[in-house]
């Protein structure tokens, strides 16, 4: 009996390795090698035509020299990202709350908030570009027809940032709202009833029953959000292309241009490494902060 069991375990282990290891090797081939290579390129000068030459920390020194604007672009990536993410998180929370109300037709509204995420970014940004056309765009024609002055959208940093964020929120708010909704529906209704019997007001119930129950969901939304906004460049590329005069350019967009257009792969590697490391640092800080708060509340 014992002998047979042992052989069964051995057989299981063999099957498991035969299933898992080929997939892992294949995935490592396409992901792990580029990851290591990218960090390595950060310490070299490399244009993909001839082999890279080692330059040590030179690229990093260039990155931190304010003359080269990398810091400016990094900072803009961060503040635009924080702005987009916080608006998205708050707005999606209220939409999730509204979708949780027991009303007729909420299925339709649930579907409609998610629909922007069904179409590709490259597809829906064209609508924004067309509407923002300074002369023949729908928005300026509309402004004129209600007696306002038309606005040269693409000549103003404020308006370009505004529309980039509007697009980001428009596309992502539905997905976040549905994650919130999943969290809201996971809260035990008995808790709400108990609070109601104890005389808690609607607002108190939101503060002391609903919000604590959503901690993990909030963590998930914010964590994936941080990782997403720190790499956001497609919206910027399509809607503003960094205009006016590079005033809405972000670091990730420059990395993309260096990597795919200008082949300045050394600086692309350096900037990627710094941006990636910073994203991880933000994620870890956020996680630590979240867990610490939890420990305090349990103590």
């Amino acid at each position, binding site marked *: 009996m014992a002998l047979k069991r042992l052989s069964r375990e051995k057989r299981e282990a063999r099957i498991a390795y035969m299933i898992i290891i080929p997939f892992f090797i294949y995935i490592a081939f*396409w992901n792990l090698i580029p990851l290591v290579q990218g960090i390595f390129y950060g310490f070299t000068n490399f244009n*993909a035509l001839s082999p890279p030459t080692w330059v040590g920390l030179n690229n990093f020194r260039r990155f931190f020299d304010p003359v080269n604007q990398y810091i400016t672009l990094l900072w803009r990536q961060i503040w635009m990202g924080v702005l987009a993410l916080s608006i998205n998180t708050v707005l999606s929370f209220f939409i999730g709350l509204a979708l949780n109300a027991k009303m007729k037709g909420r299925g339709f509204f649930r579907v409609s908030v998610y629909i922007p995420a069904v*179409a590709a970014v*490259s597809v829906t940004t064209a609508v924004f570009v067309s509407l923002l056309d300074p002369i023949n765009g729908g928005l300026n024609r509309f402004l004129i027809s209600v007696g306002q002055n038309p606005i040269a959208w693409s000549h103003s940093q404020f308006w370009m940032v505004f529309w980039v964020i509007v697009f980001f929120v428009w596309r992502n708010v539905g997905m976040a709202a*549905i994650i919130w909704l999943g969290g809201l529906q*996971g809260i035990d209704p008995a808790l709400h009833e108990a609070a109601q019997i104890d005389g808690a007001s609607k607002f108190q119930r939101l503060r002391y029953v609903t919000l604590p129950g959503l901690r993990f969901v909030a963590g998930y939304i914010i964590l994936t959000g941080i990782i997403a906004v720190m790499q956001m460049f497609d919206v910027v590329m*399509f809607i503003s292309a960094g205009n006016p005069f590079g005033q809405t350019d972000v670091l990730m967009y420059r*990395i993309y241009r260096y990597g*795919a257009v200008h082949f300045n792969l050394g600086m692309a590697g350096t900037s990627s490494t710094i941006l990636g490391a910073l994203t991880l640092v933000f994620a870890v800080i956020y996680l630590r902060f979240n867990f610490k708060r939890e420990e305090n509340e349990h103590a």
Partner: protein
Amino acid sequence: MRKTGRIISKMAWYIVMLFVAFIMLYPLIFSLLAGLNTRQEFGHMGALFPVPSVPQFQNLLFMFSMRGLRPLLNTFLRTGWYTVIVCMMAVLIGYVMARYKFKGKNFFLISILAVQVIPGVLTLIPGFIFMSQLPFVGGNNWRGYGGSGLINNPLSIFLPLGWGFLIWVFLFMQTMKSMPKDFEEAAQLDGCGFWRMIFQVIIPMNKPIIAVIAVNVALGVWNDWLIPFLYVTDMQHSTLPAYLGMLTSQLQQFGENDYPRIFAMSTVATIPPLIIFLFLQRHIIEGIASAGVKG
């Protein structure tokens, strides 16, 4: 008094939600309408709702000419291919991780979760260079120089497998763990082998979660414009969203733009995922919601 208050708050809910739904649907309505215009008419109209005087279908029909059909077909092939591969991977690895005992399971589990937080910026550009420097393909020498590698090769949008997909392995494993083992044990007593177990017991019994995985992967791959956009420059070998990405990024550069053609293509590019979504929205929404709760 309370009753009128309730009616008012109900009315407010509907008004706000209708407004939100309108904003959400507006760009899609816009692109549907705009695609039915002629270039001249659209160029001078500048309306928030570009209703054509006479609906024109030539831009939609362009999609079904030889030049338009190839990218559409590529998108279908690519989506189908990745959906099948990722579902197979999720089922196979998820099953053995949930049920089998073996050394190193924790290592595999931790690496599946750890790679989920690695920012894509670290692999995007190096992945592109890696593609272009694969030795012995596309005119490259053994060190990977001299040619263009797999860049612009039709295969390049089918071969890479991003490690983000491993999250679905985790989801399948978690679901398997919460399922009773009775059927599997009965099948095992009857002498059922590994592959028969997978195809005749595990897959039929876990159809709902496989549907969740398939639908979410399919939507993600369909809408992934960036990888084909980077890896393929000849749009005949690329996908429709990547083609549109190229056209949209050029909108910033030139004065005269053929908006109606772009919007007609957008409409065609959006219809398949929209249909998938409308029919299977329960699975998608479940997948997103459980990602938040379980992750």
